[in-house]
């Protein structure tokens, strides 16, 4: 539950270049570009794509519109009503969906080769002619309202909400992705249709593909899938936001035996030259799973938590460093104190050369682990495109990580890890 707000963009790392993992650039006859890693060992094809503009675009009073609209994208299209559409997907084991991120709409299609043409046909229909039938809209509205109500019982969700409001203030990133019980009731099928027809356009489209297809076959498939979309979309106009420079602690009392702690401070953008140094620093602090300082100090030595971790999040308009964990109410204050102590220790004294070397070894050695299935590979390629990294990035990555110096890591630690700037949220019944 805590992990939900922590998803650090886990460092993509480099691997020994292998011909089989060199992406190809494929441009369709209609001009749509995709990056492809071809692999025919399993008769499966995975596509990932995204459009600019996500749930941060929810209009005031209609928070949750984008998420709601995404739930309707596989609920009927063209001449096919919801049940007919869903049955065609299910019977052929076709996984298709559009999901909302804060800055993007992200699409995926995974098919067995035997169902490839049907999958493309259904996905194209959904992208260009989604129905938003009243019956489906009301059914998904009911599901959304249930889901919002269910989240109200989850301390991790409550903590995430309070933190987002505290660090983003009036920025569009502050509102709940699913909206509120009140706002979801005001959203109409027409609102959702209007949003999708504006955002689903070829000018911001990025596509990545992996699996059982060659470049020659992929070209026309891309045109079938995306060729029917409009050429352009309106510009996304969202301001950048800095996290608060004055830390504070917020307590949300809940009658539970454990306190959930989440916290955040300003981070660095993926495009920032300090990104690699920050990413290595974060690995040592709390990104390195069992091998981080936070886990060692708070879990291994003291037994105060099941898990504590930190992560870097970089979005289009904000960047944060977050740390979180959970401990019994009686030790909640101690947990926060230890967290801040580790921040301060690393800011003041930095990391050791040995810690840096281990972080580099992990980050340079683990890339193959994110390439073990076609959907993982497609997701990785799409991430590279969204981050504006070149198609040859996977070959250069090792050298970029290894070039980071101890001084650079310690400089970024000093810059980011100021406990006085940390916003902390505690959900539970913390006692002194």
């Amino acid at each position, binding site marked *: 539950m805590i992990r939900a707000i922590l998803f650090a963009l886990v460092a993509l790392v480099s*691997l020994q270049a292998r011909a089989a993992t060199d992406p190809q650039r494929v441009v369709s006859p209609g001009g749509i570009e995709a990056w492809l890693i071809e692999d025919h*060992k*399993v008769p*499966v094809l*995975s596509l990932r794509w995204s459009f600019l503009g996500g749930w941060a675009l929810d209009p005031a009073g209609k928070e949750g519109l984008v998420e709601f609209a995404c739930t309707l994208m596989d609920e009927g299209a063209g001449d096919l009503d*919801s049940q007919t559409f*869903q049955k065609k997907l*299910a019977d052929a*084991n076709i996984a298709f969906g559009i999901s909302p991120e804060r800055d993007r709409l992200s699409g995926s299609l*995974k098919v*067995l080769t035997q169902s490839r043409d049907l999958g493309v046909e259904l996905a194209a229909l959904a992208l260009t002619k989604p129905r938003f039938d009243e*019956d489906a809209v009301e*059914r998904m509205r*009911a599901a959304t309202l*249930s889901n919002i*109500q*269910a989240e*109200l*019982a*989850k*301390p991790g969700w*409550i903590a995430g*909400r*309070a933190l987002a409001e505290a660090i983003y203030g009036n920025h569009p990133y502050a509102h709940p992705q699913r909206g509120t*019980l009140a706002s979801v009731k005001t959203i109409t099928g027409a609102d959702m249709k209007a949003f999708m027809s504006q955002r689903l356009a070829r000018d911001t489209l990025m596509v990545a593909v992996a*699996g059982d297809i060659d470049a020659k076959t992929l070209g026309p498939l891309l045109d079938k899938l995306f060729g029917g979309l409009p050429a352009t979309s309106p510009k996304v106009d969202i301001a950048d936001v800095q996290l608060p420079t*004055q*830390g*504070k*602690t*917020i*307590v*949300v*009392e809940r009658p*539970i*035996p*454990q306190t959930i702690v989440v916290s955040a401070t300003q981070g660095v953008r993926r495009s920032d030259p300090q990104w690699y140094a920050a990413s290595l620093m974060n690995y040592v602090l709390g990104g*390195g799973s*069992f*091998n981080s300082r936070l886990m060692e100090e708070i879990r*291994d030595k*003291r*037994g105060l938590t*099941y898990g504590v971790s930190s992560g870097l999040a970089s979005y289009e308009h904000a960047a944060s460093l977050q740390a979180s964990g*959970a401990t019994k109410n009686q030790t909640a*204050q101690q947990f926060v104190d230890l967290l801040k102590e580790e921040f301060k220790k690393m800011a003041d004294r930095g990391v050791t050369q040995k810690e840096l*070397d*281990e972080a580099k*070894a*992990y980050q*340079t*050695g*683990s890339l*193959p*682990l994110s*390439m*073990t299935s076609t959907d993982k590979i497609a997701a990785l390629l799409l991430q590279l495109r969204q981050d504006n990294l070149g198609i040859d990035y996977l070959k250069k990555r090792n050298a970029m990580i290894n070039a980071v110096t101890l001084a650079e890591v310690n400089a970024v630690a000093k810059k980011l890890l100021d406990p*006085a*700037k940390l916003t902390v*949220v505690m959900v539970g019944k913390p006692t002194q």
Partner: protein
Amino acid sequence: MKRRFGALLAGVSLFAATAASAKVFEPTSFTLKNGLRVVVVENHLAPVVTQMVWYKCGAADEAPGKSGIAHFLEHLMFKGTKTVPPGELSKIVGRNGGTDNAFTAWDYTAYYQTIAADRLEMVMKLESDRMSNLVLTDPVVLPERDVIVEERRQRIDTNPQAQLAEAVNAELFANHHYGIPIIGWRQEMMQLTRQDAVDWYKKWYRPANAVLVIAGDVTPAAVRTLAEKYYGNIPAGQPQLRNNRPQEPELPGERRVVLRDAQVRQPSLVREIQAPSYASDGKEHAYALQVLADLLGGGSTSRLYRSLVVEQKLATAVSADYTPESLDRFAFALSAQPAQGVAIDKLEAALDAELAKLVKEGATAEEISDSKKRLVDSAILARDGVTGGAYAFGLALTTGQTVEDVEAWPDRIAKVEKPMVDAATILVLTKNANVTGWLLPPEGLTAVSDSTPVAPSQSEGPAGAIR
């Protein structure tokens, strides 16, 4: 359960989607002289390998009063050996670009690393070392006991849905240890000692009681050489029998758990029904039950979704889950979430009516053939990844199945016919012991507002000033 963040693996029916398939994994298997079973699944999608060691012991093998010891030992397996200091195994794996973790269920405990294929020898050396050389001292054991108690707080004690599941499960199994939570009862967990852990380790952690699965960019010949080198010299130990577990009596009556929780705003309903497994009495129903679960609650075109969500609009979500991979009879589970304003008893009545209709009329031939096709095809998808095969064989070989059973899964699903589905339907939906659970908001709470869902009770600065 996972040593760290991750889904509770116990009794979750995640196997159908990632199951084996007809001669698809095409594994190589052999047994070392000391009894260690080895399965190799070649998969060359990426230069990566997964090593898993599965032990044939789990929470259902614990002695009365010692609940949680199987899971506790799982945590303690990371605390070092005669030659590897505490915590060092994960560090070594990490600085070689790998990840590692472990999980415990009622019937098994498993450990794994995923890492670049050229590091396989290194992780085999480490994993084989802790099969016989674990060193436990109070300074590492006692803080870890606090960690598992925190884990319980995080997974169960702050999660009303999980508390309901625990209570329903305890009702469903009045005598079998499947009724005791994998993580343990808190008061018993807090009393577990270093000696308990050592005893458990000595009894169960032996080659003759373990399965080694290596999946990924490897060859069977290379694995055999390494397995013999690192695991081959470990003394066999005694294979432990697990056919003497307390079994369930026939208990008449309808059982029910109602949990009202101050945190809850969205009610939900679960029904857990005892059902045969691949290895228990009634195993002949295991394949038909998978087809039944799919046509009843698998996705938006299933019977329950169409009736309760689409047509009657009483629910916003439904599911049917069945877990065939267990040593003894386990469960067929249904769940539903009422739409706003729908009373939970009304939803339950509609669910019962739908189940009664299915019992009376049986599933249609078309429903059955569509489900079978979906399930059989899904086996191809299981090959798209490195860990799927390793998981399938480890699970099978620790829950009474064979390598051949895994490979034959699509064929056996394909052979399910309507009379088998009808028989399975009658078995689980009319005769079996079952428990219904309701999760409800506090009494008297009628309207829910989230206009200020997280209004902090206190908000103060500057940093550090809490209360």
